């Protein structure tokens, strides 16, 4: 285990430098060492080119998302959080994974997402803005993005609980995905295990209710006899989906707003051609990759050029870098509405490709349509906007202040 794995790199996804700038930060790493080994957090490989990152994510025969049998090593985050419950089906491979994922598929098709949930999202976005547009400024992350994502996801599931945001925050701690927890994730998972148990019981009650009296929501569809899922599995799936998708939506919405604040020409173009908004959304997802770092564990020795990743080694796909790979995406830092460079890795790829990607894209598209039609002249107040200090798990914001109407020069 002490043998040098080489080529070694200075890298830590929980370092402040990592958070500073995706666009420029990884250019050198990608060109000089697309597969490098860092000693941080017990050691792991970093695949930073598009080709290598895609290979790591696609090759589920050689790379597993699962934790070791004792739960102490492996998994999708580094360092491992042994005390966190598993997010399903994302933390499983093979048949066990497919069995849990298959029943989710009909609940995330384009048709289901657009016709059933589209109007819901539009309603939530409008209602939230109704309460915000008269204000001089508001916290876009906490009063719009996060609420939109929470309301939509809970509505999808059919989770009609009182304190939705409270439930979400607790789930994030329990699952060890609190965006800012850094290396303290496992401690949080331990501290919240009791609350997690309580939340699971609340969901279990709902699952039983829906089993007896089905509604047209995800919980009802999952607990229906034809899926073959047990009550425990439906509870886990519901908690997992509620926890997994929300921050990525919030982060992407915030990044979108900041980008359109910096690029007024693009904003004008989207206001004039709302049909282009979905393309802009995909470009923002590529450029600001909400989940920039995704880990696996090698199951066998795998060659990348003349480098050999050994069985048992930890390895990460650096999505935030791969999505800026200039050999795949020329002029990578620019939103190009006519870009045809193929798949970005913002939703991953392979057997764990984000099952909710169409829901996410629809939410972002409708949110932006609503924002551009109701507050087309918004401004982001930079001095009252703060990105997370640590973005290794989520490339988002703790707060983002937005003025819905520009302040006229007389008032300054």
């Amino acid at each position: 285990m002490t043998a040098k794995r080489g080529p070694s790199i200075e890298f830590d996804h929980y370092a402040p430098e990592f958070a500073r700038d995706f666009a420029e930060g990884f250019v050198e790493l990608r060109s000089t060492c697309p597969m490098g080994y860092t000693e941080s957090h017990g050691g792991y490989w970093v695949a930073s080119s598009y080709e290598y990152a895609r290979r790591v994510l696609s090759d589920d025969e050689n790379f597993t998302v699962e934790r070791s049998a004792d739960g102490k090593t492996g998994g999708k985050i580094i360092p491992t959080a042994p005390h966190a419950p598993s997010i399903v089906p994302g933390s499983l491979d093979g048949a066990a994974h497919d069995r849990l994922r298959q029943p989710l598929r009909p609940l995330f098709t384009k048709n289901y997402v657009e016709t059933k949930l589209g109007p819901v999202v539009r309603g939530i976005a409008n209602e939230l803005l109704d309460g915000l547009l008269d204000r001089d400024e508001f916290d876009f992350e906490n009063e719009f993005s996060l609420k939109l994502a929470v309301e939509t996801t809970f509505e999808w599931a059919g989770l009609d609980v009182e304190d939705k945001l409270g439930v979400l925050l607790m789930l994030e701690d329990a699952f060890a995905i609190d965006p800012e927890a850094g290396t303290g994730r496992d401690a949080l998972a331990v501290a919240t295990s009791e609350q997690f148990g309580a939340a699971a019981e609340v969901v279990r009650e709902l699952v039983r209710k829906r089993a007896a009296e089905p509604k047209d929501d995800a919980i009802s569809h999952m607990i229906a006899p034809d899926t073959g899922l047990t009550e425990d599995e439906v509870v886990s799936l519901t908690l997992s989906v509620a926890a997994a998708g929300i921050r990525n939506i919030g982060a992407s919405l915030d990044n979108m707003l900041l980008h359109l604040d910096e690029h007024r020409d693009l904003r004008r173009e989207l206001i004039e051609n709302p049909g282009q908004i979905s393309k802009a959304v995909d470009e923002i997802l590529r450029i600001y990759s909400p989940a920039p770092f995704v880990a696996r564990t090698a199951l066998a020795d795998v060659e990348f050029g003349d480098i050999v990743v050994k069985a048992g080694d930890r390895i990460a796909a650096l999505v935030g870098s791969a999505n800026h790979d200039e050999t795949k995406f020329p002029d990578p830092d620019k939103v190009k509405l006519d870009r045809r460079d193929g798949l970005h890795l913002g939703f991953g790829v392979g057997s764990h490709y984000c099952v909710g990607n169409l829901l996410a894209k629809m939410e972002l598209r409708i949110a932006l349509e609503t924002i551009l039609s109701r507050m087309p002249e918004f401004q982001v107040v930079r001095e009252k906007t703060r990105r997370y200090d640590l973005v290794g798990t989520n490339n988002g914001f703790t707060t983002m202040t937005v003025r819905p109407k520009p302040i006229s020069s007389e008032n300054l």
Partner: protein
Amino acid sequence: VTHVPQVDEDACKASGACVNTAPEVFELEDVSKVVGTAPDDVLLAAAKACPKRAIRIVDQDTNLQIYP
């Protein structure tokens, strides 16, 4: 691009394996549809991932079947 995928819609059971392997090429509703293109190795991997062997890869120029 000379290689193109063709989905046998009667054989497709919408497992989603092709979408996961090549999200840039396939989209799923009741069955899988071809909506884009990708390099040959990605197309082949997607076809091989199909548990129903419902995806054929054909060379557009020669009309020859590359896979299966």
